[in-house]
């Protein structure tokens, strides 16, 4: 989330209320790694944001390649 861009239009909170919520009048709270069952919602939210403040990536998309010295995502 690029909250510098966010102008609190709350479109995301409307499209994906389980993931995005307004906190007070303008501050946006969000779940950074929502589960797969929220995928549709989140994609709609990202598409509806008028200032493109939401960047989405799902597992299966870009990820750290084999051999990375780290644990699993999410």
């Amino acid at each position: 989330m690029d909250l510098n861009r966010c102008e609190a239009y709350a479109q995301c909170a409307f499209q994906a209320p389980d993931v995005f919520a307004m906190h007070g009048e303008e501050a946006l709270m969000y779940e950074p790694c929502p589960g797969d069952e929220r995928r549709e919602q989140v994609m709609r939210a990202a598409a509806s944001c008028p200032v493109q403040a939401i960047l989405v990536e799902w597992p299966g998309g870009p990820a750290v390649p084999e051999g990375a010295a780290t644990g699993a995502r999410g």
Partner: protein
Amino acid sequence: MPAADGSAEEFRRRGHAVVVGASLAGLRAAETLREEGFAGTLTMIGDEPHEPYDRPPLSKQVLLGRTGAGDTLLPRRRALEARWLLGTAATGLDLAGRRVRLAGGEEVRYDRLLIATGTRARPWIKETEAALDGVLTLRTGDDAARLARRLDARPRRVLVIGAGFTGSEITSACRERGIDVTVAERGPAPLVGALGGVVGAVAAELHHAHGVDLRCGITVTALEGDPAGRLRCAHLSDGTTLEADAAVVALGAVRNTEWLAGSGLAAGPRGVACDAGCRAFDVHGIVTDDVFVAGDVARSPHPLFGYQFLSLEHWGNAVAQAEVAAHNMVSPGPERRPHLWLPAFWSAQFGINIKSVGVPPMGRELAIVQGSLAERRFAAVYGHQGRVIAAVTFDHGRWLPFYGRLIETAAPFPPDFAQVDRAPGGPRPIPAEFPDPALPTHGPTVTLSGYAPSERRVTFVPARV
């Protein structure tokens, strides 16, 4: 050594890019390298064992218990095809031999290097007190996990030392969870170093309105433990003692430059100095052509602000500077770009969305151009030498791009807009009340420093000249 002749094209095709610091700036730079067609070898070195994750939620959603501390991984813009050396610290740099030394003794050769080692939380000054069970800091995901666990255990009182942005967000989260908090702040108000005393007074009211025991002009002189090594109480400079189950030290950040000591780079406590194109300076003030810097650790001159060297501890700066650094790493001279990003950040505390553009600490005066301080919802414009230099909003974020354009176009201060809800003649400027710039404050998120890029002969130029 493909890039030895300085050929950007050779480097782009076959070079070895090494990124030290695998967090926000490091990741976005690596992605930009690939986006711009870098087909060579890419090595990511990070001392944290985790994949790159996002820090802003750590003091917000995570402390509220809404998000796990391990659940803030940064989304990827694209696949990277990189070698990841995570949990591995860089310990030294050999500029002439183009080698990064690693903690295990191994060395990694590079053709071009990006330094993105960021900052860490400034620890509590007395080591034995810092080691007490219950004394915490907040910078990493692991820190956030520890603090969140503490808050889950319902401490009777939390002491927050330092009322900068991080301290205030921690305080806000505690209050939202119904936990009693005392804040000890050396300055006259919260956020005073970043936003000045006028706006700081509003932040103080927010603290009071949310039941925070805010003590300004106070320092913590000692933290005391019980025989089991658990924090018991804090001694304050006014002679009082405060019982607390946890103390969070939020005294700003320290730049991770120790690993560069003796390397010949202009790196020190104020960061790594670089030119507007993100190329690092050496100690002689000569720019290197194969070492680049981005993010919280960088210190670079900004044309909009009199070419002052700015260190910006802002999320947006890390992203923008990483993109410019990566672009310049793979581009020949004439195609290189300067980092001209207009500083901007946000903070959420006590249900208020605080946003800023420009460099408020450079402002001498401010004018409230929308809303009012009394409502705690407003837009304040800061002026410096007759022009608009910054704007800060409390729940007026939508207007910020407008103020950003005023800064970019060096619009006159005090502003006189016909369209804003003010009496004729425009808003009246008042002193912004920044503390004496020569005095340290807790974690201003912008540090202004002198013009000379070399740390050896640098002199401190105060924000107000």
